[in-house]
Structures are given as structure tokens and as C-alpha cells.
């Protein structure tokens, strides 16, 4: 009975806690000082995808810190940021979004969901809440059509462009598009919204170029892929493209090595080409390739600045925090886009904290030139880009990187997508979405 009483009082306590929580969340917003630009951070440092989520989160954190420490903020406006743990789970993602969207003096600057699932959740909410979404190289491909998806940006490339660039790459390697005919290409994909994205594009291209496409789905989490690789072994495809994520990548690379598949014909997409994906397979993974839209490693001035300003010169500490890893570098790019969008918008609205609506304008008028990249210490790290009202993807070129057992390095030139196929598909999908949701596309 004593225990029972204890429980009763616990229940009572938790109710009081709930009330306090309610009160708390109503008043927290006022606590921020004025000259601050708030960046919400939806991260996943725990759960099944934590190994990918940790470098991602660290990259964002370090770049924002760098801007504050080195430049004193964006034109004097300090960056504030808050992490919220999503576990890569869409429901928690929405919770985090709701929690953070009104924080800071002007609300959330922009949201980087870093999960295709969460992006899908937020796409309809963005125009209503007036929070722009930057789903950099993930999320809904159709959002590349800025006329329908005013608030969503997915530059510098989409899954569809990527898949078509992969096909172009294969054509290059095989000595011309004509040689694609009769080739066998397998797509090993994560059986989720994300993994399926490339299928349609590949199917269209298979028809166009006459290669034989096999789709091999791998269920979450992808710990056990023996049957997939047995199928590969029987099929003996000339090329394999993979859209994997999390543990699936590591196992796939390992299994491919175990069946002695030629690793230089195995190309992951840019979410299947991080350090954590290849290291567990040891020497077996040498030669494995993946697409990318930025460099790996720490060979750029921006990394030196991070070591200097964020870690006080402590390179070991920076390494511990994933500096130079593929996913870390990706979020450096991602964070830079956000910061530059704010800077662009400040050009129009003044050097003060900006609202989501103003930042959206900044994103849509973002123009990162080669010169600007040099100023940012990222020359050669990535391709310049220019966003337009109509094109939220900006070209969609990718580059192939290869793992040599120790590090990733570029092994091709920039490969443009097969736009004449992909762009109409994007516009068609966007139009369908507009129709289903009673959206009138902007004209531009």
C-alpha cells in the first residue's frame, strides 16, 4: 500500500510537472537577446542512424560557431542555435520543429530536417508557418520546381539528377551512351521513401538507353542482406548503384567484398559514401565509389579556420569531432548555404535578425560564385551555384569520389545530370502535387 501511495503522489507530481511544462513553453520565447539569428538544429545523435547523425550535427555546430568566433556573426548578427534530438524519427522530427519554429527573436531562420521522412512532413507546413526548408540533396525531388514549392529548396542536386548523372558516368566509363545497351545495372536501395526516389529515373533511363535494370530492395535496418547479394552474384551486374543509409551501407560494402564484386563498379549515392560506411569493411572496401557534391578531408582553408577558431588549434580534438569526414563536410556546406542565404537577404532587408520569410528571399536569390567560394575558404571544395525562382536545384551536377582504404578522393570531373529527362519529370511531379493540394504555381 505504501508503494501505491507513492505512485499516487508521483502521478500527482507528473501532472503538476505537465502544467509547469505548459506554462514554461509559453514563456520561453522571450529569453533571447535582440541581435541574434536563430538556427534550429534537428539532429540525431542517438538511435539506429546515430553513426551518420553525429558528424552531421557536429558539422552544423562547428560552422555556426566558426561564424560567431571568426566573423562575430553574420554582419554583426550573432548566430544562436539549439539542437533537438529526432532519432531520425519523423514524429520526433515534427515535435522538434514545433518546438523550435518560433524560437529566437524572429523565429526559425530556416530548417534543415536532414531526413527525407521529416522533410516530407514539413513541406506542407512550411508555407503556412513561413519557415523555409533547405533539404540539401534529399527530401522531395519535385521541390526543385520552385514555382510550386516556393518554400522548399533542395540545391545543389536531387536524387533524380544524381541517378541520371550516375548513368552518364557509367556511359562515360563504358565508352559512350551507345555502349549502355545490354548492360546490366542493379539498384540496391533502402526500402523507404528515400531509397525508392531513384527508381523511377533509372527505369526511364533504362528504357531510353536499353540497359537492363534490376531493383533490389533492402528492408530497414539492413543488417541481413545475404539474399540481396546472392541475387547480385547470380545476376552479375556490370554496375551497381546503391541508395543506402545507416548500417545498410556498411553491410552492403562488406557483402559486396565478400562475393568478390569489383568494387570500382559499385557506386553509392551521396548518402552511401561516408567514412563510417567503408571503414568496417576494412581492405575489402578499397575501390568503392560514391557520388558527392563536395570534397572530403580537411584540405581547405575553411577546415583550418575551424581548427583554429572552434578548437583553439587542437587538431586531435577536431578529429574526434569528425572534422573532414564526408558527412561533416556535407553539413559545413549545408550550414554555409544557410548563413549565405541570411547574408544575401541582409543585403535587401538590412543587417538585423531576419524572419523566415526574408530568409526565403535570400535563399531564392542565393548566388555563390567562384570568387565567393574562395572568400569562404571553399575553393575547389564544391561547385558554384545560383538559385532562381524556377530552379531550386541549380544544375544538379555530381562528382564521383573513390575510397582508397584511407581516404576519399575525387575520381572524376563534375558530371551534369541528364536534364532533358529529369527536368520534365520534376515538373510533372510538381504539377501533380500542385493539383492534389490546390496550389496555384507561381509564374517565373
Amino acid at each position: 500500500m505504501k508503494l501505491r501511495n507513492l505512485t499516487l503522489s508521483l502521478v500527482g507530481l507528473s501532472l503538476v510537472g505537465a502544467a509547469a511544462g505548459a506554462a514554461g513553453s509559453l514563456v520561453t520565447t522571450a529569453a533571447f537577446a535582440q541581435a541574434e539569428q536563430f538556427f534550429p538544429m534537428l539532429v540525431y545523435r542517438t538511435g539506429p542512424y546515430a553513426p551518420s547523425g553525429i558528424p552531421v550535427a557536429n558539422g552544423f555546430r562547428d560552422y555556426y560557431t566558426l561564424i560567431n568566433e571568426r566573423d562575430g556573426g553574420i554582419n554583426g548578427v550573432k548566430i544562436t542555435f539549439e539542437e533537438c534530438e529526432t532519432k531520425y524519427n519523423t514524429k520526433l522530427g515534427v515535435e522538434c520543429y514545433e518546438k523550435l519554429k518560433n524560437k529566437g527573436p524572429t523565429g526559425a531562420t530556416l530548417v534543415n530536417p536532414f531526413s527525407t521522412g521529416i522533410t516530407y512532413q514539413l513541406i506542407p507546413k512550411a508555407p503556412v508557418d513561413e519557415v523555409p526548408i533547405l533539404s540539401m540533396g534529399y527530401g522531395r525531388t519535385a521541390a526543385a520546381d520552385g514555382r510550386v514549392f516556393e518554400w522548399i529548396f533542395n540545391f545543389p542536386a536531387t536524387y533524380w539528377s544524381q541517378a541520371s548523372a550516375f548513368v552518364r558516368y557509367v556511359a562515360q566509363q563504358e565508352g559512350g551512351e551507345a555502349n549502355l545497351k545490354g548492360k546490366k545495372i542493379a539498384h540496391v536501395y533502402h526500402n523507404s521513401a528515400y531509397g525508392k526516389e531513384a527508381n523511377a529515373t533509372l527505369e526511364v533511363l533504362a528504357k531510353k538507353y536499353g540497359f537492363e535494370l534490376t531493383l533490389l530492395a533492402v528492408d530497414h535496418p539492413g543488417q541481413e542482406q545475404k539474399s540481396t547479394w546472392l541475387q547480385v552474384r547470380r545476376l552479375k551486374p556490370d554496375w551497381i548503384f546503391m541508395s543506402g543509409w545507416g548500417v545498410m551501407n556498411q553491410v552492403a560494402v562488406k557483402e559486396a567484398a565478400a562475393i568478390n564484386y569489383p568494387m570500382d563498379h559499385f557506386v553509392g549515392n551521396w548518402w552511401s559514401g561516408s567514412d563510417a560506411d567503408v571503414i568496417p569493411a576494412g581492405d575489402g572496401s578499397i575501390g568503392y565509389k560514391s557520388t558527392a557534391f563536395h570534397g572530403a578531408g580537411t584540405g581547405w582553408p575553411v577546415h583550418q579556420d575551424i581548427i583554429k577558431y572552434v578548437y583553439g588549434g587542437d587538431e586531435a580534438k577536431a578529429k574526434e569531432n569528425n572534422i573532414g569526414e564526408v558527412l561533416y563536410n556535407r553539413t559545413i556546406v549545408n550550414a554555409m548555404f544557410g548563413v549565405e542565404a541570411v547574408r544575401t537577404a541582409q543585403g535587401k532587408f538590412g543587417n538585423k535578425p531576419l524572419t523566415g520569410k526574408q530568409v526565403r528571399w535570400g535563399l531564392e536569390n542565393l548566388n555563390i560564385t567562384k570568387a565567393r567560394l574562395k572568400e569562404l575558404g571553399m575553393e575547389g571544395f564544391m561547385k558554384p551555384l545560383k538559385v532562381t525562382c524556377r530552379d531550386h536545384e541549380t544544375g544538379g551536377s555530381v562528382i564521383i569520389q573513390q575510397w582508397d582504404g584511407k581516404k576519399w578522393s575525387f575520381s572524376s570531373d563534375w558530371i551534369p545530370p541528364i536534364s532533358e529527362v529529369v527536368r520534365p519529370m520534376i515538373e510533372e511531379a510538381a504539377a501533380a502535387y500542385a493539383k492534389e493540394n490546390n496550389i496555384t504555381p507561381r509564374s517565373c
Partner: protein
Amino acid sequence: MIYREAGQFKTTYTADQAVFPIVQDRWFIAAVAFLALGVPFVANEYWLQVVLIPFLLFSLAAIGLNLLTGYTGQLSLGTGGFMAVGGYMTYKITTAFPDLNILVVFAAAGLISAGAGLVFGLPSLRIKGFYLAVATLASQFFLGWLFNRVGWFYNYSSSGTITAPPREILGIMVTGPEATAEVRYYVALAIVTVMAVAAKNLVRGRIGRSWMAIRDMDVAAEIIGIRPFRTKLLAFSISSFYCGVAGAMLVFLWLGSAETEAFDIVVSFDVLFMIIIGGLGSILGSFLGAAFIVLVPVLLTNAPQLFGLTMAIDLQKHIEVVLFGSLIIFFLIVEPNGLARLWQITKEKLRLWPFPY
């Protein structure tokens, strides 16, 4: 002295069989109703979206599972699958017939999910206990695969994600991005209230008695004339109907869009938790359990900030997970019959209060 039934006499069986036979209970319910209706005026969008709407829809799913597991004794881990049926069928029907009232669509999707429940309930004739529980996982995995695989269910969109299109009732937007959290909350509240009352009616009548008879002793139940197979299947289909509607609400009134991952096995476990923490065989318990499972993580997430603590986000999440697990074990140890039982004990004490005997 506050909670007493002295002086209240019941003169008809109808009065005796009312859901709330005691006057004070009715006052209590009136207060709850008042609070439920008034809450959007004080809560901000975060609370509506993160706590109240999921609380309502998970209460409904918990009622559904409670009918099956708590009342009929058939342990099921397929809740997520049946919710997926509701969610995907609502999408399919409303995009095929955009003019159909969305509530009608919810009901239709519920019926389809009742059909799925019926099919996956068939093995329950032979299989019992944990074997049945694991067998229901077959439905969970199969349905998840089906909605991921077959393009027809998501209108062949490239990613397989379904998005709630805008639909209105009486000129008010209730689904889609334009629908305000308040409106979605009220719609959810209305659905859950009606269905909870219906569930209460079911369990206090013939159907409920035959369910409980099957649960308590299926052999004896059959000998007094209850057809075990029909009774179990009815429980499976009604339960799935509830879960189906809850799944529809999950997509249309809460998340706005979903892929099959939103209905994965974690959902099934969560709902099972709700009915066990809340109380097996109790409609009220379904609400209490849902409140616990929805609210506790939110409280734990916000607790460090409330007390002004700053800690690394991953550490915080880990501690949260540990606390959540410990709380569950703690509750099971202290009151294995659930929160509803605690509530009942409180009431019984209040009845006697201030005299302990």
C-alpha cells in the same frame, strides 16, 4: 465527504447500468469535457500538435487494442499494421473521391481495416498467448511491406509517401496544411468522444460480456453458448476499426503526411504499453495510458530546460530513455493493473474518506 453515494438511490435498472451511476462522477465528467473543449484557448500550437492531438489519436488506438487484448484476451502486436491500413485507405479513398466528406472517408477506411483485422484474426482460433502475439507481427510486417510496395496505395508517387490533401467540413478546413491545430484538435476530440462512448457501450453489453468470457476462460465460455471464433473475430475487426480510424487521424489530423515507417512496430509496442500502463480491460485506462506514453517523453525532453540544466543532447536523450524504461518497470511493479486501477482505488478511498473503515 465529497465523493459519496449515500442518499443516491437507483430505482430502475437503467439508472443502475448508467456509465456514471454516481452524481459526483457526472460532475467530474462535465469538468473534463469543459477542460477538453477549452484547452485550445490556452494551449499553444506546440502543445496541441505535440501532446494533445497525438494523445487523442493514440487513446483511440489504445481503446481499439484494449477491446482486443484487454477485453478479449487476444494479445496483438499488429496495431501499427492496422493503423497503416486506415491511414493509407483514407488517402486512397479521399484522393479518388475528393468530394466525399472526410469523416465518411475515415469510417470507410476504418471498415477496410476491420476487414484486414478479420483476416489476420483467423489464426486466433488455433493460436494463443505469446504465440499469437508473435503471429500478429506477421500482419505488422506484411501490411508495412504491402503499402510500401504496391504503388496503387500511394497513387504511384515516386517516394511512396502519402500526404493529406486539404479537405473541409462545412467550409472549415480540417485536413491539409491550412487546417489549424485547433480545428484538427476539435475534430479529433469529436471522433474520439463518440467512439469511446460506443466502445463503453459495447463492453458493458452482451458483446463485452462474451469478450470477457472468452478472455477469462474460453472453454467455459463456449460451453455456455458463446461462439469463440465469431466472438474473437468480431473483437479483431472492431479493434481494427478503431485502430484504422486512429491511423487515419495520425496521417490526416496529426502528421499531415506519412510513409510506412510512421506505422512501424514501435507504434504497436507503444499502444500495447498504453493499455498495460493504463489498465487492461478499461476504457478509461486507455486514455490514462495514452496520456502517460505521450506525455512522459515530452516532459522528460523538456525537463532539463525547465530546471535550467544544460547538457549534451545525446546524453539527455539517453537519460530520457533510461528514465522512461525505469518508469515503466516501476509502474508495473507498483500497480500491475494499471493507472485505471489506481484511479479506482483513489475513488474507493474517497468514498470512505474521512473514515478509513
